[in-house]
């Protein structure tokens, strides 16, 4: 492996909601081409870190940089950074009033000023990649949860992001639909995409991750490659967590 490059760097990041501190002094970095899986109990700050990276949830102190540029409230920089950082949400958040095709082409057309015909063509390529090209003209409500999530992934990919953030992408899905979404993500990882995935899918973490971060009470409690993480749990807390998740 060539020397990994830190794409996103979090340095002493803190964040509180009222009196409750959700991120306590979190420092880490995410390298280009690496798949990082973040696990941990709910409320441990995993999602908040993800949301702080594209400033949906501004952090209180410390710094987050993307390719060396700090994430701040500066609108122009932030918009540019958000174009480089694709995000997939637990609840899909597809735009209900737009067709699948329009959901995907909206951002390229508005932000990159891509012509509609070209944006449509590119969207069809993405839809084929997630196996949904036959559903291009449907509306989100006509799709199953798994299909909606795959559209959401295609929508994020349409901006050609350099990194993809997944915030519990399969937690809102029926069990039989989880695989189809994980398959798409696995395919993405194989293609070399830099990914940060918050998930409870231990199998996915074992198989796809280059690195597993364990969050506990707003801190990174453990950071290890999946083999070491699952094969030789660092402490009882992690062992108990893995046991509960059935991995």
């Amino acid at each position, binding site marked *: 492996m060539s020397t990994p490059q830190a794409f996103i760097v979090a340095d002493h990041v803190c964040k509180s909601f009222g009196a409750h501190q959700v991120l306590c002094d979190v420092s880490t970095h995410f390298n280009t081409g690496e798949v990082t899986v973040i696990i941990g109990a709910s409320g441990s700050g995993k999602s908040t870190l993800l949301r702080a990276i594209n400033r949906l949830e501004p952090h209180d102190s410390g710094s987050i940089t993307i390719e060396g540029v700090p994430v701040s409230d500066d609108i122009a920089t932030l918009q540019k950074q958000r174009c480089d950082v694709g*995000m997939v*949400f637990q609840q899909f958040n597809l735009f209900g009033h737009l067709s699948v095709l329009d959901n995907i082409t909206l951002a390229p057309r508005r932000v990159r000023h891509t012509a509609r015909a070209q944006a449509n063509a590119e969207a069809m390529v993405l839809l084929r990649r997630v196996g949904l090209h036959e559903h291009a003209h449907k509306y989100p409500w006509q799709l199953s949860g798994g299909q909606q999530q795959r559209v959401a992934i295609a929508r994020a990919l349409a*901006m050609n992001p350099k990194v993809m953030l997944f915030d519990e992408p399969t937690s809102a899905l029926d069990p039989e639909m989880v695989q189809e979404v994980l398959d798409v993500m696995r395919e993405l990882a194989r293609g070399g995409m830099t990914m940060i995935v918050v998930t409870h899918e231990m199998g996915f973490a074992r198989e796809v991750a280059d690195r597993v971060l364990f969050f506990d009470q707003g801190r990174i409690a453990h950071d290890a490659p999946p083999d070491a993480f699952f094969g030789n749990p660092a402490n009882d807390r992690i062992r108990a967590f893995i046991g509960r998740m059935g991995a």
Partner: protein
Amino acid sequence: MLVALWPERWSRQQRSNATLVSALVLMVLALSVLGQLLSFLPEPIGSNAQAFAAGARTTLWLTLVSGTLGLLLGTCAALARTARWRALRWVASFYIWAIRGTPLLVQILFVYFALPALVPGLNLPDFAAAVVALSLNVGAYNSESVRAGLLAVPRGQTEAARALGLGRLHVFFDVVFPQAFKIALPPLVSNFVALLKDSSLAYAIGVVELTNVGNRIQSATFQPIATLSTVAVTYLLLTTLVTQISNAIEYRFDVEGRVK
């Protein structure tokens, strides 16, 4: 309902367009032949048919102008009410509070009689004064309907749009507003229909609209049943046509097929 008239195989957009066009044509047609139609009726309607028709046109015109201004005003007030800037929120809240807490009749009289005294030189003709008062009034109600729509759009929609790198204006106009408008449409239509009827209060400052015409003829001929019935039926005709137009718009936005 007009929307149900069109063939099943037509797309939503085609049906919506067909309804819109036919409702508009019907409305123009109804207004232009209303005079002729009424002239076939016995006295006292027949001889006053043209006055009725002119009154109906004034009523509709008054409603369309105030309705359009009221929609713009309502949207602006709703945005101000949800704005980040505290002063803006305060101004909007004050406007809504003042308008909703006072009778429309007082507002119309105020614009016509008190405004010229307050602002010398601002002598609005009766029609314009009625438009100002009605727009302000319906605007206040519209703003709450639009605000309800804005608040009903899930937060995740804005977050997804922002996460895609869309600018603030695009987030609003491409993602939030279309969905908010769809939610706000039924109450907005109610407000519009209410406006059509409330425009009769312009009678108080001498605007010769439908109610005014009816009352004049009624008192001149001593035939209240015939004249006031004609007035009522004409209002019904107008509100029915307006409802058809709004149904077509609602149908167009209903991509989920929830409107039965």
